[in-house]
């Protein structure tokens, strides 16, 4: 299954001190399994609990098969019949679901409930949390949540979102601004994360984003949050 790790320039080129890691043998790749494959096992048999198929490694007697990018049956033979196509899609989707079951809800920074929750992902964590500190120092009930997994999203996020009166994402990508003449609630493009949260949780999530190719600054986030709290977006609330 394809895994995409999202990053951006300020995250991938950032430098910061960290404690020297203590070497652990757990880091080492396990020895390559060369034992015979159990009688009757097929290359794409999978565990319905973990969603994982045991991979047969070259050198394992009895496990010979050909990996292919084409639709295939559980023996890894190319197959074009409709039922196998659907079975493959279902198995891959359930594999993702099994992974999702292992994810923990992200921690909330600040208080677990309040007026405004800022949601971010990636390199904006430091800026958002610094902004939350400044706003809370002013006595404002602002918290933040930083997502590590975006697809699939861990369980428990819905409940976190519902504990705040307003939710807003902070992202380094494009979203339309409502003060532009041409933009209204019918054509506004939300930033990517806001769109995902809205569609999955049916929660009214607003967004603020910048696409300037530079790190988002804590001061900008403070200004945005203050503006948001001063004038709760009636236009946005339907």
């Amino acid at each position, binding site marked *: 299954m394809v895994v995409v790790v999202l990053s951006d320039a300020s995250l991938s080129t950032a430098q910061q001190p960290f404690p020297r*890691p203590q070497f652990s043998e757990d880091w080492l790749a396990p020895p*390559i399994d060369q034992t015979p494959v159990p009688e009757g096992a097929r290359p794409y048999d999978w565990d319905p609990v973990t969603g994982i198929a045991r991979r047969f490694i*070259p*050198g394992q007697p009895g496990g*010979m098969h*050909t990996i292919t*990018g084409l639709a295939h049956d559980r023996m890894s*033979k*190319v197959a074009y019949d409709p039922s196998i196509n659907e079975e493959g899609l279902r198995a891959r989707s359930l594999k993702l679901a099994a992974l999702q079951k292992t994810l923990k809800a992200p921690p909330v920074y600040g208080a677990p409930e309040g007026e405004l929750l800022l949601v971010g992902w990636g390199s904006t964590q430091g800026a958002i949390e610094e902004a939350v500190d400044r706003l809370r120092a002013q006595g404002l009930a602002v918290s933040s949540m930083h997502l590590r997994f975006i697809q699939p999203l861990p369980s428990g996020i819905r409940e976190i979102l519902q504990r705040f009166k307003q939710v807003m994402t902070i992202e380094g990508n494009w979203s339309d601004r409502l003060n532009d003449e041409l933009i209204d609630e019918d054509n506004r493009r939300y930033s990517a994360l806001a769109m995902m949260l809205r569609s999955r949780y049916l929660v009214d999530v607003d967004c603020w984003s910048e696409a300037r190719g530079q790190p988002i600054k804590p001061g900008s986030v403070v200004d945005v949050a203050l503006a948001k709290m001063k004038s709760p977006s009636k236009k946005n609330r339907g």
Partner: protein
Amino acid sequence: MGSALNQCIIRIHEEHHALEDYQGGVPRWCSGCGDNAILAAVQRLCRDEDLAPERTVFVSGIGCSSRFPHYMKTYGFHGIHGRAFPLAEGVKMARPDLNVFVNTGDGDCCSIGAAHWIHAIRYNMNLTVILHDNHVYGLTKKQASPTSPMGLKSNTTPRGAVLEPLNPLLVSLGVANASFIAQGVDWMPEQLYDIIHKAFKHRGFSFVRVIQRCPEFLPRMFEPWLHDPGKTLLLTHANGLRPSAEVSRTYRNQREHDPLDIDTAREIAACEDPIPVGILYHNPAVPCYEDRRHAGAPRSPELTRAGLDAELDKYTIWPEERDSQPAQAV
């Protein structure tokens, strides 16, 4: 006595394989397709060399040719278009203990994968490569490939292909570190087997171009060569191949060619009629990439730890240690 007994036990446990042990399913290629001839030769090679099926890997890209791994009862990697070489290189780097073969077509190798092909030759890893060259894209139903003859009318060249074909032998012979370049034709099964056998025995990147018929889209293309054995030039040498008396009776057009002579190899490679068949170039002295890189050397936990520590030592500062040391007067 003891050692003889051990020998006996080892014998008993040694597996011997029959042709069927390498047959992975009924090929879906057209009848008369040259791919079938290559499959037969390769399965024979596996049996004769008694290759353990579980320690043998066939890697391919996309196309008719690249269905090949599915028809072998070994491990296989039916990869993505043009990328058979990097996949095979990865397999070989991680697992030098495996026999790794590459099956690629004239579209896969000479068009979309051409850059990988050139660098694969230069890397000279120990891989046995077969270029299934039928001069046309068959799986997608007749489009001109880089080796299609000039004037070929196809779905992409309705008024005839406008360019001279690319010559895979000449390209290969022009790349640094080339170590084994040969050519076979699907209608000479004995020679094809001998060439593939020699290729397998070479330690390095053995490149075998097989000129093959596509009965569906180019049914008459090689008829003149089939009808006139004089249009085939058999290359012979003590360090190359010696055709059997039977083959020599039919194919009398022969040339003594030292496989170490790269200049003559290039001259022969440039010739398309007669078609040269045999070993054009073979230099066992060219070092393999995996030997230069010392890949396959056992990476023990201690080695990994030492490497990691050395890297971390470059950047680590130890403030506690420095603070605990009493200041010394210098």
